[in-house]
């Protein structure tokens, strides 16, 4: 009669956790992940944050330029926090240059931390990103592409884990209705970001922006969707205050009542 192996014995005790552990060992998942600092989010992410040696895909929720800007700021904020952790440079590779650097500086990605690389085609951008990842002297690499197939993302994922550098792959919209995240990919996480109305202020100004942050897919975890407040000057996100703690929105009836009471 064969003796039960230690693996099968431990499997019997807590099968799922043990299997995950074994998987993590074989895949060489590093522990250097960057938490968002929001408990609700970090708890649901399998690695407790953005994995520091993996491929992450981002896309705008719709093909409108506003969602595009929101997604850009979201990944710029993550890159800024990676750069602030290690004090290194971020490489941003793209084909068409329409970024506005003063705006990026306002989420913590200053010009001294940012190196731009412009390729002629998506293939060039992917090659530049792979070079940058394998070099390993960067805090983070951002690549903006319209197309990246399964082979390309697999290569990038391997390069990221070789160079221990995270890659934030921004998939821009090609067509109006088709979401770029619908094609298969070997990314660790896939995110979809959209604009939400900001909270109304008691005066006629624009408040802190709100985003719909949707984790479409992640390895070893479940998708989720959250409404978050946009990046601050250091790239940190925040949860909106619970509705009970919010400042009261200006109400016309209140103003009228107070005016009447003052007049009276």
């Amino acid at each position: 009669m064969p003796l039960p192996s230690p693996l099968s014995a431990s499997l019997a005790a807590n099968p799922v956790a043990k299997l995950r552990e074994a998987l993590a060992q074989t895949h060489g998942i590093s522990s250097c992940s960057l938490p968002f600092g929001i408990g609700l989010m970090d708890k649901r992410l399998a690695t407790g944050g953005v994995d520091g040696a993996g491929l992450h895909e981002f896309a705008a929720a719709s093909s409108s330029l506003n969602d595009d800007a929101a997604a850009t700021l979201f990944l710029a904020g993550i890159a800024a926090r990676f750069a602030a952790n290690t004090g290194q440079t971020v490489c941003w590779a793209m084909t068409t240059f329409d970024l506005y650097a003063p705006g990026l500086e306002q989420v913590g990605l200053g010009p001294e931390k940012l190196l731009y690389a412009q390729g002629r085609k998506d293939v060039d951008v992917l090659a530049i990103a792979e070079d940058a990842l394998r070099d390993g002297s960067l805090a983070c690499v951002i690549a903006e592409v319209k197309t990246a197939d399964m082979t390309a993302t697999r290569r990038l994922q391997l390069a990221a884990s070789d160079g221990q550098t995270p890659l934030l792959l921004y998939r821009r919209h090609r067509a109006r209705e088709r979401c770029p995240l619908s094609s298969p990919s070997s990314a660790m996480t896939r995110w979809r970001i959209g604009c939400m109305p900001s909270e109304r202020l008691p005066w006629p100004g624009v408040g802190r922006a709100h985003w719909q942050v949707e984790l479409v897919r992640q390895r070893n975890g479940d998708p989720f969707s959250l409404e978050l407040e946009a990046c601050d000057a250091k790239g940190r996100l925040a949860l909106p205050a619970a509705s009970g703690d919010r400042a009261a929105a200006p109400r016309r009836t209140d103003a009228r009542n107070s005016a009447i009471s003052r007049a009276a």
Partner: protein
Amino acid sequence: MREMGRRSEHAEHPFKAMPSDEGCGGACLSTLSWAALWGKPTVLVLRTGQRDVITAACPVALDLGLRPGMVVAHARALVADLDVKDAEPDADSALLDRLALHAARHWTPTASVSGENGLWLDLTGTTHLFGGERRFCRRLLAFLKRLGFTARIAIAGTPGAAHALARFGDSDVVLLEAGQEAQAMADLPLAALRLEPEALASAARFGLERIADLYPMPRAPLARRLGLKTVERLDQARGLVAEPIMPVVATEAPIVTRHLLEPIGTPESITQVISDLVDDLVVMLLERGIGARMVLLTAVRVDGEPQRLEVGASRATRDARHLKRMFGLRLAQLEPGLGIETMHLAVPYHEPLGAEAIGALLETSRKGHDLAPLVDQMTARAGEAALFRLSSHESDVPERATTRITPLKTPTGWPSWKRPVRLLRRPELLTNVVALMPDHPPRRFTWRRQDYRVVAGDGPERIHGEWWRTGREKWATRDYFRVEAEGGQRFWLFRRGDGVDADTGDLSWHMHGLFG
């Protein structure tokens, strides 16, 4: 007072130097032709102490009686429309150094700079390559004429005699047979012997003017009166004492070569040879204390066709691994054809590179901070212009606020006014705008065939045109607003004009950027 009328006195009275009317002939003609050729008289001046002194004068100025050594104020008093320019002794000597290097590379291995305005070339055994001494002199004169110089050449047995004859001889080209130096120099002034100024002054006091005056004098009293140096110079010029020329040495670009036994054509063998060459080169660079900014690989094929491969470095480097990787990236551009016989690796452009502290040993982080290798690698892949950083440019107009700089420079940031993350290439016109003038954001507008209702807005932020650029921007004003539409879209838009003065703009609304 006795010295006043001497021949060696160069500063003559200016009015005496004017050409006289009778028997003018050649002198008159030459004056006219020089004036016609050169136009305004020009002098170069150098500030010495409290005054500007002429160091050189053009032929027109010389004809007008201006001499090197005169004070500029004096010269200006004599000649009204005098063109005075600053002398640049450093640039002159740099040019002379370059000429000496050129001579050392092209005409003779032993060449050096002589004084402030001359070159010494040791022509022993080299002139036959150029068709004899006389033809060589003609070629040299033509070469210098093309460069814009007038030159005088003397070929003599000793450097001293050549120096004297070139400066004080009677024709532009003097060829002297060996052993005739003393005779040829006899009539020249003492200044031709490169004597010290004190020695010249005392010689003038003794009434010695020409070199021939020194020949019969006893050597011991001569040495006592005019200094031992004078005797030495005299002996050197006559060939009694040797005078070596210290040649300029051209720094050669580092180059290593491998001749191959058999032609090679496979990528593996080519990579192997390149890696051997790089190893040799790194040792050479280390010895000289330099780093390569550009490395040029020349592969000579069997059919004699050279194949060139160039690798640039954004910072001086002699890292063998880095250089090998850079060549590996470019290897596909090499066409071996029937095979490569010889490979050279040269460094056409290098910079000094000293020892550096190794930060990585002290660093606790696993990653290096040095971006230069990565920048080189990405430049090799995507091209020089593809890699850049953005730095601030001092302008309030948003589209002019950024400027591209090279990756290894340090950029500066921007003031922290609210700015969008993406900027439209050109501002786009908005239609159907409803806004309260003059300083409220619009209530609604249409952009790209879509209607937006604005629920909140910040602004205006007024930005004036840059009147120093164009006349159109003289009064132009933009009022920027940050607005949020009903669905949560946040825009950056502006109105031309301040809403009060019609000169500042036509009150049209434009979309310029997007906030996330």
